[in-house]
Every structure is written in structure tokens, then in C-alpha cells.
């Protein structure tokens, strides 16, 4: 039996495993606030991570990343909360590609100067701005020049193939993995990864691992809208080996973050121990 599954089902969390949740939202939403205040966000996010045995998480904006909103406010909140818990929360800044390109680049420069090394896009919810539209191409260019990670809610197949070729050193992470053509792209493109979070049919992650390899998948939960355990469950119960589960639970994301220069110190040590 898998040691990881044994420990998890025994209620112990994930002892001895480096765990990074790569898909977490923090901040206000249209239907609710994930936390009532900055103090609560810092305290409760740590409590949530601790309760599942998660070392750190990649945090993205909440409602301010959607169409019509000033995405800079969402980034302000991210910067503030990441400063409170720098070893556990790793910020992914958001932009709205419908803004003027100069504004977008100014904002990216501002968050980069503040230490952000990753970008979260959600253009499907921003008036369906095309994934290869000029402003997003400028975002990819900005990220590529600085070694940043780019994560998107989703890309269409022709778009991810185009941009992953155009920027071969930039890690692109597709959100909400659902199988299908994504497996082909994951296999073919060394710089494309998938965040696995999705309410998907039984065994979908097993099939993805078999098709594309465990090293292409990154843990995610869409917390704090969701409890963080919902992302871990499908990974620990997968039929994959513990070595593969370790990749998904944290090692692959840790390596990407380390390359981008934003892996917190305690996790760098843990990465070396797990390597």
C-alpha cells in the first residue's frame, strides 16, 4: 500500500512529503469574501494549510480579476497577505487584458518589483479576450524576459501550442485539467503543465498520469473557495506510485518556483531533502 495513502487515510496529513497547492484564491468575490479581513486571511489560511499538511500554496486574486473590476486591487491584497506569511503564501498576480497595454505592463512591473514571479490569467472570464491577443502576447513577453511562470484558467489548444513554442523557456500551467487533447500537449511541450483541480470523473487523474506522466501535473484545489483537501484526495487515492504522487503534490511546483526565484527558504531546504 502507498505510504502516502496510508498516512492520509489515517488522518495524519502528508508527513515527509513536500506539498504545495498550486491553485488558491484569496480576496473578495462577487458572491462572498473568502476572508473578512487581512488578519483573518493570514491566520485562517495558515490554519487551513496546517490542517491538511500543506507546506505552502500559490495564491491568486479573487473577484477583482474578473471582467469590469480593477485587478490592481486584487494584487494589492495578494501582496499584503503574502507579506504576512512569506514562507507559506506565494503570490500569482492577475491582470485584465482588456486594459490598455501600458497599464498592464506598469502593473506587472509594480508586482515584479514587489517580489511576484508568477502570473495568473483568466481571460475566459474577461470578455473572452483571446489567449493570443496582443495584450496577452505582451504579458507572455514580459514573463519570458524575467523567467516568470504563467498560469491560466484555460487556453485553447491552438493557443497553448502557439505560445509554448514562442516562449519555450516559460512554464505555462493550464488550469482545471480535464483530459482529452491536453494530454497530447503535455506530452509534446516540455514547458506546459496542468494544474489538476477539477470536479472530474472517477479515475481521470490516473488516466492523465498514464498518458502524460506524473511530472506534468500540479496539485490544486481552487481553495479557499473550496476546502484544500479536495485537491489532495484524488492524488493520494490515485493508482500512481508514491514517487509520482510526490511530484504532483509538490516537487514539480517547487522546482518551477525555485527556477523562478520565488520558492520560500524553508521549502528550498525541503526540496533538496526530497530530491
Amino acid at each position, binding site marked *: 500500500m502507498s505510504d502516502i495513502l496510508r498516512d*492520509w487515510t*489515517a488522518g495524519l496529513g502528508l508527513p*515527509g512529503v513536500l506539498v504545495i497547492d498550486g491553485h488558491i484564491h484569496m480576496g473578495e468575490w462577487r458572491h462572498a469574501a473568502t476572508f473578512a479581513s487581512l488578519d483573518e486571511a493570514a491566520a485562517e489560511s495558515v490554519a487551513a494549510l496546517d490542517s491538511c499538511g*500543506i507546506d505552502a500554496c500559490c495564491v491568486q486574486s479573487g473577484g477583482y480579476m474578473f471582467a469590469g473590476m480593477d485587478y490592481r486591487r486584487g494584487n494589492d491584497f495578494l501582496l499584503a497577505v503574502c507579506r504576512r506569511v512569506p514562507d507559506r503564501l506565494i503570490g500569482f498576480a492577475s491582470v485584465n487584458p482588456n486594459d490598455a497595454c501600458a497599464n498592464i505592463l506598469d502593473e506587472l512591473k509594480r508586482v515584479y518589483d514587489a517580489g511576484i514571479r508568477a502570473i495568473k490569467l483568466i481571460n475566459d472570464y474577461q470578455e473572452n479576450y483571446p489567449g493570443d491577443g496582443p495584450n496577452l502576447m505582451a504579458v507572455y513577453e514580459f514573463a519570458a524576459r524575467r523567467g516568470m511562470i504563467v498560469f491560466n484558467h484555460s487556453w485553447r489548444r491552438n493557443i497553448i501550442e502557439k505560445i509554448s513554442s514562442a516562449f519555450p523557456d516559460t512554464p505555462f500551467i493550464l488550469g482545471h485539467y480535464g483530459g482529452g487533447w491536453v494530454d497530447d500537449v503535455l506530452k509534446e511541450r516540455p514547458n506546459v503543465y496542468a494544474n489538476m483541480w477539477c470536479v472530474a*470523473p*472517477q479515475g*481521470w487523474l490516473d488516466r492523465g498520469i498514464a498518458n502524460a506522466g506524473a511530472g506534468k501535473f500540479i496539485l490544486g484545489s*481552487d481553495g479557499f473557495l473550496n*476546502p484544500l483537501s479536495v485537491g489532495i*484526495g484524488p492524488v493520494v487515492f490515485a493508482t500512481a506510485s508514491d514517487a509520482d504522487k510526490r511530484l504532483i503534490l509538490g516537487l514539480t511546483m517547487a522546482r518551477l518556483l525555485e527556477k523562478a526565484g520565488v520558492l520560500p527558504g524553508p521549502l528550498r531546504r525541503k526540496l533538496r531533502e526530497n530530491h
Partner: protein
Amino acid sequence: MRANETMPALDTLRLFDSCLTLGRIVHSQYPPGLTVDQALELMDRYHIAEALVHAHDARMIYPREQGNRRLLEAVAGQPRLHPVWVIEPPKSPGPDAARALVMKMLDSGIRAARLPMKASPPLPWLWEDLCAALEEHHVPCFLDFGDVSTSGEVSDGDVNGVREIALAHPELPMVLSHLFGGLGVHPAVVPLVRRTPNLYLDITGILEFWREVAAEAGPERVLFATGAPFADPGIFISNVQYERRLDETAKRNISGDNLRRLLEGVR
């Protein structure tokens, strides 16, 4: 890393899955379905002690009796699998046909029913006779708002209809089933559950919202379900096991004991 507080071991929760679908599924988005042997294998893998099972055919195809009958044949001699029939109001109005259907169900060993709300919407006059017959025997009813899969949603009219039916049949346990809600479900669901003592919620498709129901209306009103094979069981099992605000008793009730009590109440 190790969790900072120990959660209950999964086996102590005695999981009773209130929604497992049996039968072949031919659909590009879903796995090919579960036979009885595959269902038992899945339950072993995920530490699920028992499950309510229904036939995919009975949910999707008329006459539903065919799927219901095949289900009975398939699960015969399998004590961990409890068959559920998918039933709708008989075409003949009045109590006799409804009572006959319920007696046939009970005589066949069925102790729970799945009511397809998308096929027969929750109109009180439409369901009156069947719900009265089910209420006489306290048969738990799953109000199934799902489509092909376990994803579904309710409208304002559905909420009103469920309210009227549930209040008209206070001894009939009714379970809201397949309310999918990534960013929340219908805002009236929590107020409705609070105001309707015989209304419950299963967690198929619901990741966060069930906590609000447990907090507002009590954990005894929430039933564990995986929705397999349409959803990955690991999502919902870990969701309940690692919930950090409920105590172990509440988790055990949600995981299975609430459903066991409802089934024990069938007369």
C-alpha cells in the same frame, strides 16, 4: 508535511455512499460505468463500507422499470450494495396506483427512492399521491436534479415546489441531490433546509456549501455521497475526513450514520 491535528482515520467514519451509479455509460466525458464487481472494488479502494446504488438506465431511459429490475438482479446477494429505484408519479391519479408502486418497491427490498426532478418537476399536485404513499412508510427520497451526470441546479420554481411538497409530507425524508455548485448553489437552499425539518442535502457535486448547511441546519441534515463514477470519490471523501471545524461525531453522522438512521426508519 504532517497535519497539525490528527483527523479521524477514514475507516472509523464507516462511509456509506448515498449515490453510486451502476451500469454501462457510453459518453465521451465519463468513464464506461461500473459493474457490481467494479463498484465493490472501488468501494474497497476508497474505504467505503456500504452504498446506495441505482441503475444508470433507470435514471435515463423509459420504462424505468427495466433498469430498476436489472439493478435488483445485479445486486442480489451483495449486502454492501443497497438498491434504489428511480420512480415517478404513476400516470393514474389517486392513491391506489401510488401505493401499489411503493408496495412493489418495498416488497422487492428497496428502502430508498430516487425521484427524477428534471423529468417530473417538483409540482406539488403531480407528486402528491406518490409522496403520500412514500410518507406512509418513511421511505427516504432523493430529489435528483442532475442531468446525465451528478451535476445539476435548481430554479426558483424548484425551490418553491420542494418546499411545498416537503411541508405537505413532514414524515417523508427528502434529500436534495445533485445540486452542483462550484461558486455556490441557489441562495434559497440553506433557508429552505432550515425551515423544512424533513429536508436533507447530499454532497454530490458540492465542495463547500454543505458546510454551511451543517453549520446552519445541523450536521444531521447532510449525507455523504461520491457520485461515482461521474465524480472522483477522492474529492468528496477527503473533503469530509479533513473538515477542520466539525467534530468526529458530526463527521461520522455525515459519512454514514445519518443515512443509516433514515433507512432504519423505513416501515
